[in-house]
């Protein structure tokens, strides 16, 4: 259980480090942060961040999945699910 928690934190930290350069308003990033609405970034910028995540974890995240994701927490969960499926 603690292993999962730690891994969860690593993915969360990876995502926030990629989002931080786009976080112009300095919003505090939590699992509940709405990526597009709270950070005021456009959908294409989100897709580009996801591309970095894909290369970092050597996984493919379908556009269909991304379009259903709103919060950082949902993105973290989706990455874990795909990592498991594609490993």
């Amino acid at each position, binding site marked *: 259980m603690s292993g999962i928690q730690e891994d969860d934190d690593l993915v969360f930290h990876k995502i926030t480090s990629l989002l931080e350069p786009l976080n112009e308003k300095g919003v505090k990033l939590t699992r509940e942060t709405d990526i597009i609405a709270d950070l005021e970034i456009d959908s*294409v910028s989100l*897709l580009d961040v996801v591309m970095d995540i894909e290369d970092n974890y*050597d996984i493919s995240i379908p556009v269909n999945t991304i379009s259903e994701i709103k919060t950082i927490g949902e993105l973290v969960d989706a990455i874990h699910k795909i990592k498991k499926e594609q490993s």
Partner: protein
Amino acid sequence: MSLFEKFEDKSRLLKGLLEQSPRDPFSVSMDEMLGPTRAMVKGKEIVLAGTNNYLGLTYDEGAIEAACDAVKSSGTGTTGSRFANGTYAGHKELEADLAEFLGYKHCIVFSTGYQANLGAISALAAPPNDVILIDADCHACIYDGCQLSGAETIRFRHNDPESLDKRLSRLGPEVKGKLVCLEGMYSMFGDVAPVKEFVEVAHKHGAQVLLDEAHSFGVFGEGGRGVCERDGVLADVDFYTGTFSKSLASIGGFVASNHPELEYLRFSSRPYVFTASPSPANVAAASAALKKISTDSSMRTRLWENAERIHAAFTQLGFELCAPASPVIAVKLKNKEEAFMAWNVLMENGVYVNLAIPPGTPNAASILRLSVSAAHTNEDLDVVVDAYTTLSQILAKGAA
């Protein structure tokens, strides 16, 4: 809560920019067309340098005559789908001529280039076992085609065959059909895909390639057959899509292929079945332009001369350009505000180009997108270079 609420936040950003802008770049009206490269806009004569009219054939005498004859003989509209009453002899002839010109066995004509990609992609790939892989910078119609298909869609890095290779390698054994979508020349920056490498990677993994040559048909290759002709892989492309609304100086689109199964699209592609076919005039104009392109390469020569001249001039003026010389020459500005200002300076100096801002552009760039035409005269280009010279001086003053 209303239907319109969601637009408010998005439009607020644009509204601020528009309020500062003397002219609205997104609602320009060409009050009177004076030819392929000139128009009257609000009482001022403007050189058109953002048109996609690469070969300048919109006023070609042969095409105009063919379009007029078609209206007189076949009427102003077909009032029906290709699937029903909207297929005339002209549509079939144009399909045969395009197939012959490109060297494919089959071709299907759609009502627009947008619908050609939408119709091909959505019909070819289907959930749950097909996967579509698209270049990150693909046009909206390719993204929309993926959405309409409902198949799983994966983006790969722009113009990066290795990135495609990785993503194809990750696919599991449950995946049946794999469709790779990319473009010859990309419309915003004018950069060109390494098509040969992409085709090799795709075929190595048993995937099929859909190549959109909308902006490169008539422009690249010895015979004007696009980037895949230039790269020697024309025959290896599985699905070649294109448009009539650029080099062919009309409106409509097509998909060509050597796969006999392409014919299935005629009853399975919703954007083919459920819309009216292109009008007789549109078809006749595209046919005439195609004949001209296949027999006369002088427009292409002129186009590239014009492109080289503008690219060299802008480089000398110190502009940051988005790609090597091609008929699309995009200048990168610092931000949206500067791009709006620069666009207005060019209009005041008699030049229309396309203003493009995020999210409609790659890498969140704010650009002025210029497209060169074979119909641009030396005098037209003088006006363009003068206007950009004025702009560079204003930008230099602002930076100082």
